[in-house]
């Protein structure tokens, strides 16, 4: 059945529509209701519940929360229960861990006053605040289409149809999506949002900016024996197991009921197509520094998510007629601090204030110029500007020299100047791979089932579930070039970068085909970013599908 044979969609009107209930979307909704209680605000969230798709470290800088809910510390239900107590930074070699003294670190790197928590729990809690202020919040609904008006302005979004079969035909119980129409639409989809990507292209928002840059972050939550737990200890490493030409590093945070969140980020501008970020995390856990923390513990969850790394240079123009990008849809992660949730909240607040002003002036569907004009001089800009050269230096000079120069640049920026000006990031991440023939395949160690695991048993712990009978939500535009480029030149890196084992090349010669196990997808968006042939587009599957993260 073609779209025009389907029954018409019902439409509903709101003042403000928000796509995504992450820290950015929820903060925007709360601020709107604080300053303009009469306005109607709706949020749609593709996860089965708020927090189901949220994955973060997370060490949280409370600057955003302090501004949003100044009294939050007196709220007995808040989830920021663990203050950071000890902050350690290591350079790893295969067997050794060299601790960098804290005085060596630029002051902006300090985690004093921050909290270790689950960002998903923070979002669940913010959702209760938003709902009690009258925000209409609908988890289980993915926004799949941007609605445009006759002047080319954004008018809202449509949610996806439910109950469509594999073959694209409606099944019994088929339910048509809904049009949510409004005066302003805020895209808060996080890193590499699917509608955000369409809007960036339509309004050429990336023009005159560096390309967006990303990393992939994989994370596990462990419950460890009490004698190995050091509440409030946070630990970061760089170096091993990555080589000097691959950017990335680890985080390990102690919090909760003997919980340890351990994760690994690999910058997606890596060159060697044999790299498997999943295996790097597994290998990393075997380092004596980490093994001694996790040994005898139990892994209770797993997941992965792309993280934005372009920062200051790569943030696109944030506004266009009828809407704006907030949070990691714009890309406000501070890379050396591996923090973005505070800026996600601050940008949600800032945009909400500008929307409220516009509504008060009876404006609608025009450009929120004041938001674009103010972020660089706000706390967000101040946070990102100082660290703008860290990632470019790392990419250019490799880890050892790059991280040193990055540190120096953060120091001089703290004092108000930079020796480097503003460096550019170079090519988009899907153009950085080199042909597979230039490298030897990497022999990763086999999982032991205690400390290290295979991918499928890991995906099981993410609680990922999709309705099986629905169209594949990962679109490969041109299978022929996917084979010629992705498979023949780069030896199928999707099989290794995908943290859920979704892509598999099977068969040989004329029978070679790409199998897409879409049901396993954890919505990290890496394939949409890294595919060297630029063929893969991630679209939102039927609402409610995807991971069901807890304590992430």
């Amino acid at each position, binding site marked *: 059945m073609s779209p025009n044979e389907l029954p018409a969609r019902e439409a*509903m009107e709101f003042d403000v529509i928000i796509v995504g209930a992450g820290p950015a979307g929820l903060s925007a909704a709360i601020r709107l209701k604080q300053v303009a209680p009469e306005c109607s605000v709706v949020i749609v969230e593709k996860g089965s519940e708020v927090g189901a798709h949220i994955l973060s470290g997370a060490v949280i800088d409370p600057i955003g929360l302090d501004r949003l809910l100044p009294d939050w510390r007196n709220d007995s239900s808040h989830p920021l229960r663990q203050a950071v107590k000890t902050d350690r930074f290591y350079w790893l070699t295969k067997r050794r861990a060299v601790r960098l003294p804290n005085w060596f670190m630029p002051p902006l790197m300090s985690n004093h006053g921050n909290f270790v928590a689950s960002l998903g729990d923070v979002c669940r809690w913010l959702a209760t605040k938003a709902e009690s202020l009258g925000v209409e919040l*609908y988890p289980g609904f993915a926004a799949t289409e941007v609605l445009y008006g006759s002047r080319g302005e954004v008018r809202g979004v449509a949610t996806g149809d439910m109950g469509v079969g594999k073959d694209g035909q409606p099944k019994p119980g088929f339910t048509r999506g809904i049009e949510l129409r409004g005066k302003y639409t805020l895209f808060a989809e996080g890193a590499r949002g699917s509608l955000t990507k369409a809007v960036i292209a339509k309004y050429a928002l990336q023009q005159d900016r560096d390309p967006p840059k990303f990393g992939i972050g994989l994370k596990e939550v462990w*419950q460890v024996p009490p004698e190995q737990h050091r509440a409030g200890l946070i630990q970061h490493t760089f170096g091993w197991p990555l080589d000097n030409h691959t950017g990335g590093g680890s985080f390990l945070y102690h919090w909760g009921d003997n919980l340890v969140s351990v994760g690994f980020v690999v910058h997606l501008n890596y060159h060697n197509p044999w790299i498997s970020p999943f295996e790097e995390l597994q290998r990393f856990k075997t380092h004596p520094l980490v093994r001694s923390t996790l040994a005898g513990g139990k892994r209770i969850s797993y997941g992965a998510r792309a993280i934005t790394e372009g920062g200051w240079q790569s943030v696109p123009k944030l506004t266009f007629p009828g809407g704006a990008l907030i949070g990691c849809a714009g890309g406000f992660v501070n890379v050396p601090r591996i923090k973005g949730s505070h800026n996600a909240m601050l940008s949600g607040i800032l945009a909400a204030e500008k929307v409220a002003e516009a509504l008060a002036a009876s404006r609608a569907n025009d450009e929120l110029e004041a938001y674009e004009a103010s972020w660089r001089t706000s706390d967000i800009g101040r946070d990102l500007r100082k660290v703008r050269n860290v990632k470019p230096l790392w990419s250019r000079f490799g880890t050892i020299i790059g991280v040193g120069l990055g540190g120096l640049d953060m120091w001089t920026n703290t004092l108000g100047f930079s020796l480097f000006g503003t460096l550019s990031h170079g090519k988009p991440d899907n153009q950085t791979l080199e042909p597979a023939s230039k490298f030897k395949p990497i022999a990763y160690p086999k999982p032991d089932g205690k400390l290290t695991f295979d991918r499928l048993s890991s995906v099981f712990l993410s609680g990922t579930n999709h309705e099986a009978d629905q169209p594949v939500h990962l679109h490969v535009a041109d299978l022929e070039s996917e084979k010629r480029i992705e498979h023949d030149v780069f030896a199928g890196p999707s099989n290794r970068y995908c943290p859920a084992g979704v892509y598999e090349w099977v068969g040989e010669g004329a029978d070679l085909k790409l199998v897409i196990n879409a049901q396993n997808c954890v919505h990290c968006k890496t394939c949409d970013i890294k595919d060297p042939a630029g063929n893969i587009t991630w679209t939102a599957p039927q609402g409610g599908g995807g991971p069901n993260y807890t304590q992430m």
Partner: protein
Amino acid sequence: MKILVPVKRVVDANAHVRVKADGSGVDLSGVKMSINPFDEIAVEEATRLKEKGSAAEIVCVSIGPAEAAEVLRSAFAIGADRGQLVIGEGDLEPLAVAKILKAVIEKENPQLVILGKQAIDYDNDQTGQMLAGLLGWPQATFASNVTIEGDQVQVTREVDGGHQTVRLRLPAIITCDLRLNTPRFAALPSIMKAKKKPIEQKSVDSYGVDLKPRLQVLKLAEPPRRKAGIKVKSVTELLDKLRNEAGVI
């Protein structure tokens, strides 16, 4: 005709739960909770009966913590008209639940009560049967088809090795099986309207029934971990392993 559908808030079918370290229970912190899938089927069936004109009103009742209001809202989004929330903390056993339901039924006077065949948290498969016993009503369990015929209801039951069709006089109790229907996707406008439907709240103690547990849980343990499988090269090897290693043939 009025239909009453009891709906339970249970851990979501896709969530992973862990047994607490001391074996005293299941750790539900931060775990997604949902309407029991079989109860969703029961609400769907009641809604279809109403759409066919066989029923006039659907009342749902949930017994549990204050958050159980959410599962009543899920039931409203499918088609239930109003709800009763009986607030009580802790795990109530099926007998206690059946006694409270009996009290609710005596006040509401429904002609038909549709329950799920079991709740997927403890898989007891008892509440419907106990309720029928307490009320002295006829019951048809594991229903895969329901048709109202005047003051009677015809039910197809899933039994071992086939189907059994029975006819009951109303008022009656039905518990539904997985294949009775596939619940609809609640559309956004229905979910929005669901927020406005009325929920009456009571406390479990207000019924004056004996809720004392009859069972004592000694210990909970996770099932032993299954060993990784292996690939065999031939049927002969498979037979050999089944015979000599597994000892099953």
